[in-house]
Structure formats: structure tokens, C-alpha cells
């Protein structure tokens, strides 16, 4: 049924071929591999004339830090950004997918993307998957209706609120936001508040850490500052660096493949060419 394979491939979407096999393995008692999750603290703050979003930069796989400096602020449209918590692969691929979808729509309609349109599209996609697509997003942007900020949960629920926080560090960040948020903040005040909220998440939550990324979206565009604060820089230099002598590691055999000549030779053997 080769035509089916080709049809499915060009149609795109998810491939469920391995599901039955994996279920059988789980039934036999195997534990699954941990996905990379973004333990995360992400916040969004509305201010007079725009919205500020900030995120930490740690990605975890179980209890290991998989990525010390990952990017959690994704562009969905030039005027709409998303900060993501949850399963890292889902976040990355869903945001890339929506970025492309919105771009196509902008080209077709010749109109700016709107925040509520992004929310609707997202929730319409997430709800049918019953929360199995693990993305918890804060969507912030500015459009013809002014600056807007909303959070979307993996099951497809959305909430509009002037300040949001999500992720494992959300409670720590929420403490800062609830205490210090006011209506009518200036851009710099909102940025400082967002950074402070992320700091609380970084220091109090084990799933968040490393650096802070910030983006401020206004009518004039999005001002993205990567690693605006760094808490995890190596504070020492090894005095005597490890310097391995060349050709020190004992080898059984050594081959060399010359790319230009497309020739494979064994090093150490006199002129012996192996096909």
C-alpha cells in the first residue's frame, strides 16, 4: 500500500505507526524515556502601550539540565510573541507551525495578525488532543485592538489577564507580580518587574535557572534582549588546563577517508587501501 505512505507523507501531521508497539513495551514493564521539559518560569506583564514577556533559559530532562541556555520566547508574528512552558519539543514545533500558518494568512489577507486570532487557532488545535500536546503558553502582542496578554493551558483553556505567569516557577513569580503590579506602568518599569519575577522563579524553583530573556512588544516592534541577566556564569578558571598530548590515546586501528579523493586508507599500514 505504497500510495498510502506517499499520501500520508505529503499530507503531513502525526504518524501513529509506533503507538501499538510502545504500548506493548509499556505493558511489559518498561519505563519511558524522559522528554525534555522546560521546567520554566515565564511571565507576561501589560503596560501602557505594549506588553513585556520574560522567561528563564533552563531545559530539563528528568533531573538533568539538558540545555543551559535554551530559547523560550518564540515569535508567532512580528507583533505577537509566545513564551512557552511544558514539553520542549511540542513548544518548538507547534510555535514553528503557527508561525508559518500565520505568515501564510498574512500574505493571503494582507492584514496584521491579531492576538485573539492566535489564541483561537491555538486552542482549537490543543483541545482535540486532550492535553497530550504539552504546551502551556503565554501569548502577548499588540494589534489594532491595543496590547493584549493571555495564557493558554495544554488542554485548550485560555485566560486574559494584565499579568500572567506559567511553568513550575509560576508561583514564585506570581508572588512578585501580585505584590508589585499596578495599572499604567511604563515600559521600563514593566521590564524590571518581569525580570524580578523571573529571578524569583530562577532562585526558588529547581526547574528554572540560568539566564533571563526579555522581549518588549510595542507599536514600534519587538525589542528582544537575549540573556539580559546571567546568574550562572562560570566564576572560576581552571589554573592548569587539561592538555592532552597528541596521539596519546591508544588505538587499535585508525582509518582516514579523504573527502576530495573519496579514498579510504588505513593509517599506519603502508599503502593498504580498503574498499
Amino acid at each position, binding site marked *: 500500500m505504497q500510495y498510502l505512505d506517499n499520501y500520508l507523507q505529503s499530507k503531513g501531521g502525526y504518524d501513529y*505507526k509506533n503507538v501499538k508497539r510502545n504500548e506493548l513495551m509499556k505493558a511489559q514493564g518498561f519505563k519511558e524515556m524522559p522528554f525534555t521539559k522546560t521546567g520554566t518560569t515565564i511571565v507576561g506583564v501589560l503596560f501602557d502601550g505594549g506588553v513585556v514577556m520574560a522567561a528563564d533559559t533552563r531545559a530539563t530532562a528528568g533531573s538533568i539540565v*539538558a540545555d543551559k541556555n535554551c530559547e523560550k520566547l518564540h515569535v508567532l508574528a512580528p507583533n505577537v510573541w509566545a513564551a512557552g512552558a511544558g514539553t*520542549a519539543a511540542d513548544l518548538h*514545533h507547534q510555535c514553528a507551525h503557527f508561525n508559518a500558518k500565520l505568515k501564510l494568512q498574512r500574505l493571503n489577507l494582507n492584514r496584521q495578525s491579531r492576538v485573539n486570532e492566535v489564541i483561537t487557532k491555538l486552542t482549537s488545535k490543543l483541545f482535540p488532543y486532550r492535553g497530550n500536546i504539552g504546551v502551556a503558553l503565554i501569548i502577548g502582542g499588540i494589534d489594532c485592538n491595543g496590547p493584549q496578554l493571555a495564557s493558554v493551558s495544554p488542554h485548550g483553556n485560555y485566560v486574559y489577564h494584565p499579568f500572567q505567569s506559567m511553568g513550575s516557577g509560576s508561583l514564585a513569580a506570581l508572588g512578585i507580580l501580585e505584590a508589585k503590579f499596578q495599572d499604567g506602568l511604563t515600559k521600563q518599569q514593566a521590564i524590571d518587574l518581569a525580570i524580578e519575577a523571573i529571578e524569583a522563579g530562577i532562585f526558588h524553583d529547581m526547574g528554572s535557572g540560568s539566564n533571563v530573556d526579555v522581549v518588549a512588544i510595542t507599536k514600534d516592534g519587538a525589542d528582544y534582549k537575549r540573556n539580559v541577566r546571567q546568574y550562572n556564569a562560570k566564576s572560576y578558571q581552571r589554573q592548569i588546563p587539561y592538555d592532552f598530548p597528541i596521539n596519546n590515546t591508544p588505538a587499535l586501528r585508525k582509518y582516514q*577517508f579523504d573527502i576530495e579523493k573519496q579514498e579510504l586508507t588505513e593509517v599506519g599500514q603502508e599503502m593498504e587501501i580498503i574498499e
Partner: protein
Amino acid sequence: MSGIFEYNGGSIVGMKGKNCIAMACDRRFGQQMSTITTNYQKVFKIQDNILLALSGLNTDIHTFYALMEKEINLYNLKENRKMKPTTFANLVASALYERRFGPFFVTPIVAGLENGKPILATYDSIGCKSDLDDFQVGGTGGNYIYGACEAFFKPDMSPEELEEVIGQSLVSGCDRDALSGWGGVVYVLTEQKLTVKILKTKQT
């Protein structure tokens, strides 16, 4: 029963150097605590300037490699040109994410040279690409190799030095992991050549 990931064992590591990249893997293929062979290939040459290392469940290593080989061959035939390493890195991420709800139990590392610039990317089993670090690890011994890499790694090493460092990191890491070891292979790729070195290690 332990995890699916620990069934066969194995470790891989990739590093960036100055205009070169290196990959290393162990050679063990086991079934839980037994060892079946000690010459299982885990690093594959996809193209003259792209290497793909795979760790995890060995059957999925084999299947995923065959899938990637098919993709790149089709690409070469359709587009009549070589695939860029960054393109291949994205292809691996998409191929993994396509099976989001029934994943391949592999953690790949892709390494390549694009116009002389080293590219290195690692993924979890469902396609979360992580390409910002200078070294990446995978497999059951990955966490131990992390420690060795953090200690030995220096940025912008020459190909010869990189070969030493990656070899030592792999061997040190695999010594602490019961499910990896039984030899090591180091691949160093530069613009001019690919060097393959089979390491002499403790036979355990």
C-alpha cells in the same frame, strides 16, 4: 525491568572544534545485563560533511538511521544537490516529532560542517532540538560523560586535540556506566578528511 532506554545501553558524544567536529561512541550492544556484540555501529556517515550518532533502543537506532538515509537519498535525487547540515538537523527534529505519540526510542546527535563552520545538535526522543552548546551527549552513560566533558573541553580546539579530548571523555564516562563500553570509536571530521579511530579500552 528498567527503562526502554536502558535495554540495550550505549553512549555517544559530539564536540565542536575549530572548523572541525568530532563524534565518539562506545561499541557495546547488550540485552539488559548480557552483552551480545562489541562492534555495533552507532555513528553513521550521512553525507561527506554530516555525521549522525544515535543512542537508545538499538532496533530504533537501525530503523531511524535507515529512515534518514532514505530521506537524504531522495533529497539528493529530487534536488540534485547535497543537503546542508542545518537542513538535516531540522529534518531529524521533524522526523522525530512526526512520531510524537509513538516515538522512536533514540536520542540522536547530528554533527556537520557547513562552509567550514561546525554544526552540532542533539534531540530528545520527540525532536526538541538543542544546538547551542559546544558538546552534546546521549545514551545511558551520557550523564557521566557530561562531567568529563565539562572538565576537559576547551573552545576552538584543533582536530588532533579534539580527537584526544573526546576520546578521553567517552572512555572516562563509559567506565562509570555498566551498560556502555567494550571499546570506543572516534570520528573527527574536517573539510578535508574524516578520521576514524578505534580506541583500545578496558574490555568490560
